[in-house]
């Protein structure tokens, strides 16, 4: 080999391809011989090595261990032809994640703080059951296909429960659509007196040709929630404090698109797809065997549990989903805590219809509801979760002094803040400040009226581990890990990952007398913790360094 041949070999380094498939394989023996004798070519060779090293990642990206099974599960649940899957899925997952926030946040306070811990239940994985649930989600989407108006009727059964706390805290998430096309996350409150139950009628209409839809929920014959799109405007039922109701109609924005995947917010599969898309969800699904349905049809009972370590898992909370064997349609969904059914959503008669009873613009509702109403057991609270809010929004909405990090944690990414309904003391709001960290050490700071009033006593059983120059105290106690699990689970919408093996939780006490809760999804050095706490400042004081 001479110098010219050597340079050609180096130029073609990325092209060299031996018969056995080994890439970047130059004529090694001849090259070595020439390099021994020619310092200039040896320098060029070293340069080539450096250039190759500069563009060759030492760490190889690989798919998650469960991606293959997730793909095959999704394929199993996909009936041909199914178009626009990509568009639907991204949107669906996002809604599902916020569904998880809503659910976790509710149980964070309602179950986690009020109820004592129960025994843990063994996790059980069953891919076939997971696949069946995925197929049920796909079947739910098929209900909205076709070229005629679809009419679905479900009944929400609030079961008699003797425990006064459980009787009081029941709710379901409700999604509605804004004129901008963005989803809005609300809460259907389903409180009852101990030992008493009732039902709520849930009716939906969807026109596949135009994208028009209407959903109306009624309790005791009165509409408690309504949301529709009539082709030009989005219509919503609003209830004033005095009980007066009105339909608010707002023209859709120029960027508005009718929902492409109505199953995301209508019908029985709402939120289910999002739950299944969460990491590790396969291990939470269990086949509970065959069941006989009304009329002699066969069905399967599938249990969907909650991640280990969280309050829901500790209270043996789960969904039981009854799926018809013949068409994989969901027949019934039950929500249980400590094996006791709290809520049941039962599918009723469905099919095609001409138009909604109340009209696409909901004009029939006022007539049936009247201008005012007596106090109803069930109700609707809007804006259960408002994702991605600004600090200005927090400042305007907060009824207590909210703290934020003046400097973002150096290891973490972009800050996101969610404004969440404080379920224990509505209509107060709680604020979740989250950072999704590149190294997995995600940060969650939760502040709420309920925390401020209920978590204070916990500092007495904890140990003061640090006080910042600004006077923020860090308390460590026996429930640190529990607190961290809850906070991190609640923030899955933004941090994506499930809580790690050794998350860190602290209860903070601020000079303003509030008690924020802090969680970090991994180890933190003393300096990192001090830096984090030192940068906490109250919002609304620019002179103090408003974040």
């Amino acid at each position, binding site marked *: 080999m001479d110098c010219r041949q050597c340079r050609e070999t180096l130029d073609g380094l990325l092209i060299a391809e031996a018969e056995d498939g080994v890439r970047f394989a130059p004529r090694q023996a001849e090259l070595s011989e020439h390099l021994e004798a020619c310092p200039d070519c040896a320098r060029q060779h*070293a340069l080539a090595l450096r250039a190759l090293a500069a563009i060759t990642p030492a760490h190889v990206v690989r798919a*998650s261990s469960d991606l293959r099974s997730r793909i095959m599960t999704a*394929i199993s649940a996909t009936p041909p032809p199914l178009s626009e899957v990509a568009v639907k899925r991204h949107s669906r997952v996002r809604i599902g994640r916020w569904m998880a926030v809503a659910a976790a946040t509710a149980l964070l306070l309602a179950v986690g703080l009020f109820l004592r811990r129960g025994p843990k239940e063994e996790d059980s994985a069953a891919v076939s059951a997971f696949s069946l649930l995925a197929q049920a989600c796909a079947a739910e989407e098929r209900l909205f296909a076709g070229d005629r108006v679809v009419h679905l009727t479900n009944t929400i059964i609030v079961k008699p429960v003797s425990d006064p706390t459980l009787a009081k805290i029941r709710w379901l998430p409700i999604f509605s659509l804004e004129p901008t096309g963005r989803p809005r996350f609300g809460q259907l409150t389903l409180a009852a007196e101990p030992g008493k139950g009732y039902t709520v009628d849930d009716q939906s209409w969807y026109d596949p040709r135009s994208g028009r839809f209407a959903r109306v929920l009624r309790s005791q014959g009165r509409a408690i929630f309504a949301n529709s799109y009539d082709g030009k405007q989005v219509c919503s039922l609003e209830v004033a404090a005095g009980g007066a109701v009105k339909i608010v109609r707002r023209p859709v924005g120029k960027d508005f698109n009718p929902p492409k995947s109505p199953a995301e917010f209508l019908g029985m599969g709402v939120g289910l797809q999002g739950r299944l898309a969460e990491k590790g969800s396969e291990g939470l699904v269990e086949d509970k065997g065959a069941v006989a349905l009304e009329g002699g049809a066969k069905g399967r009972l599938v249990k969907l549990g909650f991640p280990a370590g969280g309050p829901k898992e500790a209270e043996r909370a789960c969904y039981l989903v009854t799926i018809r064997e013949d068409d994989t349609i969901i027949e019934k969904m039950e929500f249980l805590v400590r094996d006791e059914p709290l809520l049941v959503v039962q599918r009723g008669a469905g099919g095609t219809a001409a138009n909604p009873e109340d009209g696409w613009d909901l004009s029939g509702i006022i007539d049936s509801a009247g201008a005012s109403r007596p106090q109803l057991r069930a109700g609707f609270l809007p804006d259960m979760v408002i994702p991605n809010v600004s600090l200005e929004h927090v400042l305007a909405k907060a009824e207590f002094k909210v703290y934020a990090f003046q400097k973002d944690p150096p290891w973490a990414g972009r800050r996101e803040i969610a404004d969440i309904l404080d379920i224990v003391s509505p209509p107060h709001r709680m604020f979740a400040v989250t950072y999704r960290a590149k*190294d997995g050490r995600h940060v969650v700071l939760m502040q709420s009226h309920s925390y401020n009033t209920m978590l204070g006593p916990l500092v007495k059983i904890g140990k003061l581990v640090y006080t910042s120059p600004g006077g923020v105290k860090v308390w460590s106690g026996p429930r640190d890990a529990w607190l961290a699990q809850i906070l991190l689970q609640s923030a899955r919408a933004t941090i994506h990952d499930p809580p790690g093996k050794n998350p860190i939780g602290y209860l903070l006490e601020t000079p303003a007398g509030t008690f924020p809760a802090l969680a970090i999804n991994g180890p933190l050095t003393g300096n990192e913790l001090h830096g984090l706490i030192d940068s906490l400042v109250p919002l609304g004081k620019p002179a103090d360094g408003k974040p």
Partner: protein
Amino acid sequence: MHQPSPSSQASRAITVNSQPEPTGAWTSGWPQSRQEVAAVVEAYADRLVRHAFRRLGNLQDAEDVVQDVFVRAFADRARQTEVAAAGPYLYRSVANACTDLLRGRSSAAVYREEVAAGELLGGSLGPAEAAQAAEELRRAESLLRRLPDEQAEAIRLRVFDELRLSEIAEVAGCSINTVCSRLRYGFQRLRGMVEEKRE
């Protein structure tokens, strides 16, 4: 400082860890049964996720895109009978899906810079290693972006995605000779950049 001798430099392997090449699936037509799809998923999941990841900079989005491509293609499998080779089709589909996703992001350009290091190995890296891996990718991209697009893309397909020359030609829709030219001239420029940086 110790300088390695030319011979020891030459003996340093110019190799990259490589997975078994899915040659059978690459040239076969689009799978029609679930079993056939399972084989293709098994062969391509890692590679396509890697391909999507370097375009999106986020492992979760990359996996979503790959899953969507498989699901969509399987749902339309009856119309995919004219697909002569599954491999190039999958790479092009994933690339297009990534482009669609990025188009919807106002911060796409920034996002590509952001490498979710913690996700590189599904969270199996420690913080220091993850940061190092992120730095490696950022450094590589900072060099490649200075090349003409076609040369940079050929190098990415070759180095990151570990494709054969014939496979790159099919994905890029050009001849093998063209691929070789792009790799050759691209690598020449890269060496020049590294030399400039050193000086």
